[in-house]
């Protein structure tokens, strides 16, 4: 039986050490980094245009995205306890069974 050459023996020794102790650890670290990169990418994708628009408006430009009108605080307030009750199904006062 022929003996393995010394370089291949060295390689085998290194690879055995890697698969036993390091392979899984490195994989987990790569997975974590990829997830972080994906998360940051999603954030940029989600908020990037809004941030760019905000900077643009702060710089004196017109908003690029003409969104629907936003309600003011007073207009949107609907939790007045003394106001009329919210409209329900059938305001006739009958009990629906």
């Amino acid at each position: 039986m022929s003996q393995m050459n010394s370089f291949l023996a060295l390689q085998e020794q290194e690879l055995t050490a890697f698969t036993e102790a390091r392979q899984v650890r490195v994989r987990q670290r790569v997975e974590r980094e990829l997830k972080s990169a994906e998360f940051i990418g999603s954030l940029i994708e989600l908020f990037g245009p809004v941030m760019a628009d905000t900077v643009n408006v702060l710089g004196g430009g017109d908003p690029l995205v003409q969104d629907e009108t936003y309600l003011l605080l007073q207009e949107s307030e609907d939790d007045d306890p003394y106001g009329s009750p919210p409209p329900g199904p059938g305001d006739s006062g009958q009990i629906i069974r």
Partner: protein
Amino acid sequence: MEDIDIIRAYRERRHATCFQILYDRYSTKVYSKAVTMLRKQSEAEDATQEIFTKIFLNLGKFQGQSKFSTWVYSITYNLCIDKIRREKKVRDLFNTEMEDPPDTVEEVPDEALLNLQLNELKYVLSKLTDTERMMLLMKYKDGVKIKAIASLLDKSESAVKMQLKRIKEKAKRIHEHRFASTPS
């Protein structure tokens, strides 16, 4: 299943299984090459992590014009060379002109190195410079072709051949000096 099919599937669905298959196929090879170049196992481990992160983040750029393995190995070598350059480990890597005429170097047959005992080889490697060790391991451990080594080190093929010849001769001298009197 071919690499390219797994890559396509990973691009479409980002499925963890595709990642796992590619990682299992190439991680040992990438690590082996990294440890050849960087010497320390901890550095090779960090490099392997960086290489795989880079590979998967740039998988969209891989068009399949070359083999996936070729692409992976070029990323591996480039990243390791960058690391070496940054740490200035091999100042002589890119300016090693041959000073002596080629015929002064004794031709050492490959078998003289291939038939060493593992502990002998480790000793010889420990006595070589980083560049010498790296070139020898690239050629004989990782099986990198002379042309590829020349391209990676930005040298001509004949310069690489000559340098390898010198390294083998030096390795033989180191071995003889240390082990000639002791039976192997």
